[in-house]
């Protein structure tokens, strides 16, 4: 089996477990909706200004909800020594990390889909006409945060303060991705073409490639135990 076949096998396993238990999706999805509801009390939710900081609001929600998803990624392998079994299997470290990132990516996209519908309704923002551009932005940014979530989920899985340490470590690393995603999402919500903001698309692509490359190289080192 080549690396991607192995990675897809890991992702398929994680998504199958998630579809049966729904522990991450239920928690992250409902958390995202609750945050959007709370923010609607803090801001004038029907004003045009909402389109100017809607991107920031959405990515804040995705980052918080993402931490819940990423924390579970490797933690679900701890009971019954599943992580040891995975590491003893013929899987390469890179395949395991990338497979976890694929699963994170899929789960976070579901949370984003739920959130964007909720956001459109609660904040009266029409995003459906820009669904294509929004998909590109969400896909590029979500891959970047997913690969970070996978690699640092693996890094922190055995720590005493796992739930606390993961956000402390990954949020600063996510900053370039979040800035670019927020800028591009604001452009899309204001019905402006994202082609005029190529520098932010470059930041997303560079972060995706850079973080994926580093994760690939360091996977075996991180997963030694």
């Amino acid at each position, binding site marked *: 089996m080549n690396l991607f076949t192995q990675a897809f096998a890991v992702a398929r396993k994680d998504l199958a477990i998630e579809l049966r238990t729904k522990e991450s999706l239920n928690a992250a999805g409902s958390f995202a909706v609750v945050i959007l509801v709370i923010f609607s009390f803090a801001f004038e939710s029907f004003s045009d200004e909402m389109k100017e900081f809607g991107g920031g609001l959405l990515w804040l929600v995705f980052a918080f909800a993402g931490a819940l998803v990423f924390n579970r990624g490797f933690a679900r392998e701890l009971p019954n020594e599943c992580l040891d079994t995975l590491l003893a299997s013929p899987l390469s470290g890179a395949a395991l990390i990338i497979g976890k990132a694929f699963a994170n990516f899929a789960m976070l996209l579901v949370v984003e889909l739920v959130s964007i519908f909720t956001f459109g309704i609660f904040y009266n923002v029409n995003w459906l006409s820009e669904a294509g551009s929004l998909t590109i932005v969400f896909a590029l940014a979500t891959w970047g945060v997913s690969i970070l979530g996978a690699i640092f989920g693996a890094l922190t899985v*055995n*720590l*005493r303060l796992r739930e606390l*340490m993961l956000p*402390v470590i990954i*949020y600063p690393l996510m*900053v370039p991705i979040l800035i670019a995603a927020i800028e591009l999402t604001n452009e899309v919500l204001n019905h402006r073409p994202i082609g005029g903001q190529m520098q932010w698309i470059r930041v997303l692509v560079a972060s995706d490639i850079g973080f994926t490359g*580093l994760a690939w190289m360091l996977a075996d*080192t991180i997963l030694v135990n």
Partner: protein
Amino acid sequence: MREKLVIVLAGLAAVLLAYNLHHMFLVLPNEVSQDFIFRIIFFHVPAGIVGMIGFFVALIFSVWYLAGGDLRYDSVAASIVEVSVVFSIVNLVTGSIWARVIWGIWWTWDYRLTSQLVCVLIFVGYVMMRRAIDEPTQRARLSAALTIFGCFDSVVVWKSIEWFRNNHPGPVLSIRTGGGNMDPDYERTLWLNFLALLIIGAALALVRSRQESMEREIDSLRRAAHV
């Protein structure tokens, strides 16, 4: 040997710092447009450069650790990161004081400022993570991996004033501009103070790495006693 080296470095730094302070406050004239506050550059820029060099040196030691598995390299990397975090915070604080006087605000979300703040937060996370892991080899391996990711941001900090034009002043030092952007006497004082801060940083890193080695020794003795 290490203690003697620390004393020599500390003495050298004290003499150099005294000379620099005398020169920057009593010899050099005020800058034409920024007046007295311009002198903060003699600490702001060197502290930033020392911090950044430290992160890259820590990166080298981290890669050495990953390649060879020698925990001494991890101790050195961790000591250098801690000292570099302090210098980077000095860089942020002095920059903020300068901004309050010149721009009228303590902070702006400029690319250089933001990337430097993010860099500090990443390495503060590194220090916190080390405290949360008891097992030395696991701690060393994870710290090395985080250093490699953190240095990704350090490159952005370094190049941000070339890549993006924003509020932060552009490059002024001759090594980046080819000269002509700063009075040679000012620049000479800045580099001398860089040397002073670099020596202080090296002395602090030596003291800290000695503490790390002792901690490791005590830890192995404790483990041996339990076995």
